[in-house]
């Protein structure tokens, strides 16, 4: 028995003719925070719903804490789940929801709930229907984390949270991972995954296109920089530099994509006839990331 908390092998789900998830092999080990990254409709939520046994795979299978989630409900005691579209009976207060789930889970430490509501600044006495989107999300986070689960399956966990709370949430996840929890969190925004996750799995049209640790992935991907100079520059001055893939110049503004280290570009750009005033990293576009991975893979694939 290996120590994998979440493991899928050839996991496939078809809805009619549409293949939502296609032969997915993914694993999450204790202590890892895996960002499950992909555009909307890529199959992230379908994967997660299979991991919780809400839907059954068409073929292949998955194991969570060593058992098949569709057949065995016991491991769910060790799972914390946050749905992408959180729905709670609007007349229920968070306190009532936590108490009910505590009964279903065979008891939950009250201190765990209190600590989380305090850290996330949530008033649990209000009815769910009266809460803002961000506060509803906090209710979802607390119910997912309060029983200190070994596995966390979180579908777009930070949606609706303001940046301060996002940061606190990231800190909580890191603490949990440090204590040995396995975390799978889906997202369609790169910076969020970049900040929180130790590993990234990228899915597109139901297929896993890349799995690696976050830093490697970011190193591997093209870096897009926005440079502003003290005067107009020419594209030619930048395009010949080592590692530069594309250059787009508009007056004093240049957008440059770089493959590999950005050192040569920085050196050359600082030595131009006009001063380099600002550099902004714009590598937050998921599409760019996909394209760079895709381009590389298709290029590698075409080579004999």
């Amino acid at each position: 028995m290996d120590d994998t908390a979440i493991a899928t092998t050839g996991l496939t789900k078809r809805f009619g003719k549409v293949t939502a998830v296609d032969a997915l092999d993914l694993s999450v080990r204790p202590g890892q925070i895996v960002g499950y990254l992909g555009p909307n409709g890529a199959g992230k939520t379908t994967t997660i719903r299979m991991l919780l046994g809400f839907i059954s795979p068409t073929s292949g299978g998955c194991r969570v804490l060593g058992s098949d989630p569709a057949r065995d409900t016991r491991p769910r005691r060790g799972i914390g789940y946050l749905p992408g579209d959180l729905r709670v009976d609007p007349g229920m207060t968070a306190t009532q929801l936590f108490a009910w789930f505590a009964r279903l889970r065979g008891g939950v430490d009250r201190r765990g709930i209190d600590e989380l509501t305090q850290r996330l600044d949530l008033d649990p006495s209000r009815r769910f229907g009266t809460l803002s989107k961000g506060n509803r999300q906090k209710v979802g986070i607390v119910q997912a984390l309060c029983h200190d689960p070994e596995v966390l399956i979180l579908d777009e966990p930070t949606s609706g949270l303001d940046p301060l709370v996002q940061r606190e949430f990231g800190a909580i996840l890191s603490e949990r991972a440090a204590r040995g929890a396995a975390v799978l969190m889906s997202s369609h925004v790169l910076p969020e995954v970049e900040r929180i996750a130790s590993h990234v799995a990228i899915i597109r049209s139901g297929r896993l296109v890349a799995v690696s640790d976050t830093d490697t992935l970011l190193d591997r991907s093209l870096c897009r920089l926005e440079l502003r100079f003290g005067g107009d520059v020419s594209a030619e001055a930048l395009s010949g530099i080592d590692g530069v893939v594309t250059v787009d110049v508009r007056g004093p503004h240049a957008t440059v994509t770089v493959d590999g280290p950005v050192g040569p570009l920085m050196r050359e750009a600082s030595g131009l006839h006009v001063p380099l005033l600002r550099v902004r990293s714009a590598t937050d576009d998921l599409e760019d990331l996909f394209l760079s991975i895709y381009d590389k893979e298709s290029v590698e694939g075409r080579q004999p």
Partner: protein
Amino acid sequence: MIAVFGHAVTRRRLSFLMWSIGMVLMVGLLAVAFPAFNDNSELDSTIAKLPPSVLRLLGLAPGAAFTSPAGYLESNLFANVLPVMLLVFAVGFAAWTIAGDEAAGTLELLLANPVSRWKVGIGRFAAVTVTLAGLSGVCAATLAALAVPAGLDDGLPIGHMMAATTSAGAMAFVFAAIAFAVGAGTGSRPAALAVASAIAVAGFVIEGLAEQVEPLRQVRRFSPWHWMFHADPIHHGLTLGSWLPAVATAVVLAAAGTIAFVRRDLR
């Protein structure tokens, strides 16, 4: 399972309270109005001229007096109003238990907990059963309290009123089980409501028409309405036939619905 059951009952408690108040008022008014009808032979002879299918739908066996306690209660309560009230309450609740909760998106969060779909299905159907029995009990208790002051006990044992209430509750139980099974099997609340209501209305109409349309007599043998009318609990008391076929059918349907729920994908 108790946590699931408790949550479902709690969710429905306000609705249950409203239905109970309505039930007490309705049964109370009927009982209070009875002395005005008591032994009005003129009314009896008028009603006796109605066609048999209408009499059947009024709940009057041929030759039974409308103004006797049994005829009065049967035609104003047990043959129509009470079964319909219990049915509407129970079908609405049963359609929520799985399908309604699923459509609202709240079922998924529950099922992420260490609770099997078996327990959710059984616990929630138990909640329907208990609240339906409770609402029937409210009707029975109101009748028992008012029977003597209103003179409804004249030639009619109170036990027969209880039996007729039980029989109506058992019939509503079948339709609740249909709504539950369709909802649990398909995840569609509209389908659950539509199928249960359609069968209930069809059963009621067939029961009346069958008096005059011979082929329908074969069909109505499968109708819970017919089981209830045929057992005639207001005259014969609590026989096995007045509740057992209905309860057995409901349990089988609920079990089938739960099995389908356990096997299918959530929506």
